[in-house]
């Protein structure tokens, strides 16, 4: 599987990852090389094999819906890059 520069650019956009022009080529070569090696997966016969998403077979883990203490807003906001009136300040979503 070869990944073109354009495909790398598209994946980066999906992941909201800015990539330098100069890095596109490098990532395209490296990711293609990795994916080529992963063709081995297609050689494994998985007919009638169910997928595993998790090593522990847990179904829903439930708990009582009880009120418990939470973090103080000031503690959470202490790491905020930009804060205003006890809220996270964000850029305009609508332009």
């Amino acid at each position: 599987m070869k990944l073109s520069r354009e495909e790398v650019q598209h994946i980066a956009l999906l992941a909201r990852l800015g990539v330098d022009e100069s890095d596109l080529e490098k990532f395209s070569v490296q990711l293609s090389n990795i994916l080529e090696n992963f063709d081995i997966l297609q050689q494994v016969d998985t007919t009638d094999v169910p997928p595993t998403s998790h090593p522990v077979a847990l179904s829903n883990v439930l708990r009582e819906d009880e009120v418990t203490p939470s973090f103080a807003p000031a503690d959470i906001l202490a790491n905020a890059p930009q804060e205003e009136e006890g809220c996270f300040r964000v850029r305009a979503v609508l332009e």
Partner: protein
Amino acid sequence: MDYDLTIHEVHELLKSRKISSIELTQAVLDRIEEVEGKVSSFVTITRDLALDQAHQADERIKAGECLPLTGIPVLIKDNMCTRGTRTTCSSKMLENFVPPYDAKVVEKLNDRGMVMLGKSNMDEFAMGSSNENSAFYPTHNPWDLERVPGGSSGGCAAAVVSGEAVYALGSDTGGSIRQPAGFCSVVGFKPTYGRVSRYGLVAFASSLDQIGPLTRDVTDSALVLNAIAGHDPRDSTSVDQPVPDYTKSLVPDLKGTRVGVPREYFVEGMERGVEQVVRQAIDQLEELGAEVNWEISLPSTPAALACYYIVAPSEAMANLARYDGVKYGFSARDAESMWDAMEKTRQHGFGPEVKRRIMLGTYALSAGYYEAYYLKAQKVRTLITREFAEAFSKCDVLVTPTSPTVPFRIGERVDDPLQMYLADVCTLPINIAGIPGISVPAGFVDGLPVGMQILGKPFAEETLFRAAFAYEQATEWRHRRPVLNGA
């Protein structure tokens, strides 16, 4: 004062009041001062906190309460949240992040009178096998400073073997405890998935991540697991099973133990010296009374690397979507719009390997490729898990090399991601199956350490400890230390 003792040795000295925790902590801090310039195991050294906690531990010991870990200096990998002490994941993204809470394992160690020396250097977001992916500086292997200590818990392994910490807590997603333990000649233990709470561990790949100890011997490993294992309602994947006293399984013989050697782990790419050392170690297990079966087969092993590098990046891309520059972490300022800000934040906050994995995961999960990659990898995961279960119907433990090579040179693999991934080829199938694994020092090739990996079925930690302990007691590798004089 000796900075180079084990937990159980130090504990006896503390309990009998032959030394104080302050004296011990000061000795370790002095050692850090002496060798850190060469090794670079730490991202943050919490000197004042350590001395303060040592003082509190001494008060506790005076009051007659000296638990096995009380007053003993520990290094915590920098992807476990520590309230009030920055937790960076060796990433520019979290360089100034100070968690408002403690990880469950940190809470547990605190309850037992922990003395925290600091936070360890690591591969950024635990993605790497050499510590070269740290955004700050690489860690050096104390046995040869030109070589890597392994990764991603490379700072932990390097610190424990060079006397900069009595023990360390690391995390293991595809070998990140065991592989550096093997490269540095310490004991590294990855528990069964669900044995230790992941609450407060910065998530990399949630179905693979597990916390465990790096220690100077197997007894210490059992002591630390005693302290950190157990169910935690705040990690819904932690398993509610009783925690035995793991030190009870430390018996120095292997009579009746069935040891299997999976032949797929001794194949191409393995260095001859490593193979010889591990084969000798297996012969030693036989001398200790084990029945060795050299004919075990895990046929899907060759596909495990690809399976892992689809599953782990897919989970990582979802977990790392949270770094958007809004709530915490690095935030790009010079942007024109919300999307632009987010893209620039992630462009400048993440290093190259993290970006590669985010893109790999995004690709594997994207429309048109999901079935060929992610779903296929999940099915291969089922096969790998089944094959381990089948093998464990014939033997109690499996034994393999921890890594196919001795520690490689710094810079040797950084430009070839696939070569770097191969460093974990013996360890990552274990995370895929969720089973426990331990790496114990098994010898040296030209002065460079080799680890032997011992595997068991889910929650068979005691069987692993017994095999590892019997082997360790019959050898002298644990007493060897690298020469690291003065800075």
